[in-house]
């Protein structure tokens, strides 16, 4: 069953095939659309120098081993033996087996399937729009198991506070533990500030405050799924007077000698100044609603406003943007099968809908989306869940992605091999820095500047993993 989705298939052939195979289910419309995506991409205006990176952060530590699952018999048997009650039965995986576009031989001849609730990511992978980065995680420098176990930390440095949620979230976003104030997305933004007419729209979070999109100079701009939020009572007070509105505006924006107060005033001024600009531009964007997504998919809501902002890029004068979106509650210590199904289905739907929106906007080649998360998890289960781990597998999605293949080194499905540090916690074979440098390079950061974005990149031999 190779190549069930390829760009060369005609729409009709695609539909026939999907019906025959009956395997794509909810992902069938996407698969059909992708067959015409190549045409759409070809029609997209050339000379549009726009580029955007979108970080999809899965807060809590995504269970990588139930996201990308061994499917070949030998490795699936090992997986099932180790994971016990949280393991997928093999037959559940048959419809989401990934089909690399070029044959790849992975560690122990592993063949992977996605979780059954990720049919759209499978379509994106098979059609070459999504790549998988294997076993990537927090490192300061390349590390072997012997070095990990060595007491000489000066010689074999570890990232601070491995296995701790908040610190590893911070490390993924800012390559430092909690309290870091400059993220690598923000550093990318620093280099791009002058490319954008509205400097404040360089680094944008549609989630909460995130250090990822905070630079040395670049500020995080926060947007809600509904767009920029106006100060309604400043505009109109239905039960009071214009004088109350005027006083309100003065009060909330007045500078102060107290730093906290002054910061609030600065925030209010930024909020007010950008609201009209942003909403005015968003009003002019036409984009099909993110359909079909279930009624409540907060990640899709965030990605939809990101897509709309990208749609408004010309109006806003944006040419380089870094976005941050997120989904909570991936810390599946218990009830993993049900909870992971619910959340990863949302990720699957949201990323696919977003990719489709970039096609509709003619920017599929210019927008690259990637996943990140606190850490991977243990292979060993604790009855119905898993514990905090280290390395994980991640997805990179977009028209520019050299997809349909795996990057990095697949870990053994094992508790004994040298690529894990106990209970199946993966010792990363690829560093966040390398993953980030590859994305940064595509974003336009010259090699000479890479160390300013990623201070430890010099510790790693390979700076470009080649997935985009």
């Amino acid at each position: 069953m190779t190549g069930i989705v390829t760009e060369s298939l005609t729409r009709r052939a695609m539909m026939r095939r999907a019906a025959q195979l009956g395997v794509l289910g909810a992902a069938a419309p996407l698969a059909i659309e992708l067959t015409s995506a190549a045409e759409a991409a070809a029609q997209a205006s050339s000379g549009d120098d726009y580029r955007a990176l979108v970080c999809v952060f899965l807060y809590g530590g995504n269970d990588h081993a139930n996201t990308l699952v061994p499917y070949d018999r030998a490795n699936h048997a090992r997986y099932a033996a180790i994971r016990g009650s949280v393991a997928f039965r093999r037959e559940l995986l048959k419809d989401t087996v990934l089909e690399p576009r070029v044959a790849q031989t992975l560690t122990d001849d592993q063949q992977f399937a996605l979780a059954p609730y990720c049919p759209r990511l499978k379509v994106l992978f098979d059609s070459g729009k999504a790549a998988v980065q294997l076993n990537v995680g927090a490192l300061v420098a390349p590390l072997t198991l012997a070095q990990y176990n060595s007491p000489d930390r000066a010689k074999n440095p570890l990232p601070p506070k491995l296995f701790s949620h908040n610190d590893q979230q911070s490390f993924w976003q800012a390559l430092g533990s909690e309290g870091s104030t400059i993220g690598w997305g923000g550093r990318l933004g620093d280099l791009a500030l002058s490319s954008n007419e509205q400097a404040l729209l360089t680094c944008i979070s549609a989630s909460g405050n995130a250090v990822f999109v905070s630079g040395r100079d670049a500020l995080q701009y926060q947007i809600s799924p509904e767009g920029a939020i106006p100060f309604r009572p400043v505009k109109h007070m239905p039960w009071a007077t214009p004088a109350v509105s005027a006083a309100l505006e003065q009060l909330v924006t007045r500078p102060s000698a107290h730093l906290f107060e002054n910061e609030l005033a600065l925030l209010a001024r930024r909020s007010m100044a950008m609201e009209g600009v942003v909403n005015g531009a968003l009003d002019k964007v036409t984009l099909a609603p993110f359909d079909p997504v279930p009624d409540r998919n907060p990640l899709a809501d965030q990605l939809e406003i990101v897509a709309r902002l990208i749609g408004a890029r010309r109006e806003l004068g944006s040419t380089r943007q870094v976005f941050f979106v997120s989904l909570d509650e991936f810390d599946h210590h218990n009830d993993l099968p049900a909870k992971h199904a619910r959340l990863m289905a949302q990720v699957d739907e949201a990323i696919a809908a977003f990719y489709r929106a970039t096609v509709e906007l003619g920017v599929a080649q210019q927008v690259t989306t990637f996943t990140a998360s606190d850490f991977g998890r243990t292979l060993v289960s604790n009855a119905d869940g898993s514990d905090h781990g280290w390395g994980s597998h991640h997805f990179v999605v977009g028209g520019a992605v050299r997809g349909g293949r795996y990057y990095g080194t697949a870990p053994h499905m094992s508790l004994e091999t040298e690529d894990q540090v106990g209970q199946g916690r993966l010792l990363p074979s690829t560093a966040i820095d390398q993953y980030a440098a590859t994305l940064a390079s595509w974003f336009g950061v010259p090699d000479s500047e890479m160390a300013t974005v990623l201070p430890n990149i010099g510790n790693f031999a390979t700076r470009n993993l080649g997935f985009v």
Partner: protein
Amino acid sequence: MADDLAPSNDTEAARFLLRAKFSAPPADIAELRQLGYRGWLDRQFASPRGQTGAEWLDAAGYGAITEKGEYFWPQFGDHMIWNQLLAQPDEMRQRAAFALSQFFVVSLNPIDGFWPPYVMAAWWDVLTRNAFGNFRTLLEEVTLNTGMGMYLNTKGNLKEDPATGRQPDENYAREIMQLFTIGLYELNPDGTPRLDPAGKPIETYTQDDVTNLSRVFTGYDRDMSQVTRTTVAWLDYPVPSTDFCRDPMVLDPANHSALQVDFLGAHIPEGTDGKAALAQALDHLFAHPNVGPFFGHQMIQRLVTSNPSPSYVGRVAAAFADNGSGVRGDLRAVWTAVLTDPEALAPSDPAIGGKLREPVARYAGWARTVGVASEGGKWNIFDLSNSGKSLGQSPLRSPSVFNFFRPGYVPPHTAIAETGAVAPEFQIANETSIAGYTNFLQWAIRWGYGDVKPSYATMLAFAHEPKEVVRWLNLHLAADQLSPESCALIEGAVASLGVTVDSDDAQKTNALASACLLVMSAPEYLVQK
């Protein structure tokens, strides 16, 4: 502190009250000035409890077994906690419990199954019942609470199984150390990090400590022994009574790990009885020198200032270590030390002192000051954590066990960051939330939220006097933090409504709500100093 120290004026009294609890209405100011700080605190510590969350849910009819399946509805849990914070008479206890709920976090968000509101009510009861008790007792009740068991997975946690390779769940073992007792780095008694010879902070625990300690928390599950079951026509299984929410989890020795536990220098021998193992583990954590400064620092941050001096933290930690009668972990001593420290009572630093007042505290303070009532007794206030549409924060609705904001949060490239200060509450301040909050106020303080409407009863009498309205609100909501310029600006705006002594209550309420909106949006109010 001298035992008879008292505020010398209403401003000082209001300043103290707005830290010790949510509001500072006139009667409390008078009482505090009469009793002095210590006398007032002692009265609060001795005062009777209000209705518990579960009692209130029962009384409001939220325990009914209905065909709509309301026993699965989480939102009554929101109604319950808002009623507690906005209306129960034991206000200081509620305020202290709210601070504790941001240290020991259980969120309603993922709580599912039967009776989530009762699970949260029982959790809230642990915090309110022990808010003026002892940290060690609190820690044990926190550990065995069903809601915590569901949230951090002690419920149903099984011992290792060599046959399948299964391991105990490590979640609670990790977070009880990282968040609930000792934190990540060894601390001096004043809360500053201890450093190794190379000048680096010293980590308190390793993954191995977590793995060992996790064995202690195996074998627990909900106590169903008191549960009665109701058979209903519309379900093919019975509906349990709410008792399991209230009762501490029980130990099944068959599911408890018998392996020895070595963590943080403690040794619990192989085969130790589960109950004894828990007591030893909690005793060991409780005795760790980090607990006082780690916990005390965060309670100072919640109630007084984001950036206490090390000596202030040190004094609070000393009170934690010994309440003066040789008792460790006496929370009355902690609250007293936090609230009456000379640094707390002195004028705060004009550039960096104080903290950003939390959205929940703003709303609760306003409600208790102007008076609100639920028309139908249902307290239909929901999860208000949406930052674009409401407060961006809601009690018992943290997005994770790390609370809405972290004690060490530094707002990036701000003047605050340049000074090396932290500002935890700024983690939920952004372009969206600052506007969303004002929009929420515009509606909620005039018309109410859900069935919870403001009365402004005591203020209607002077609603036609803008100067008095502003003076009153500045004192009672803001401890006179608003500058004369801001007051003049607000007075002018309120005067523009043209309310006279003969205006009707609706017009007067327009004026009063306008004044509240302006006061509560002003950065001079938002930063509690």
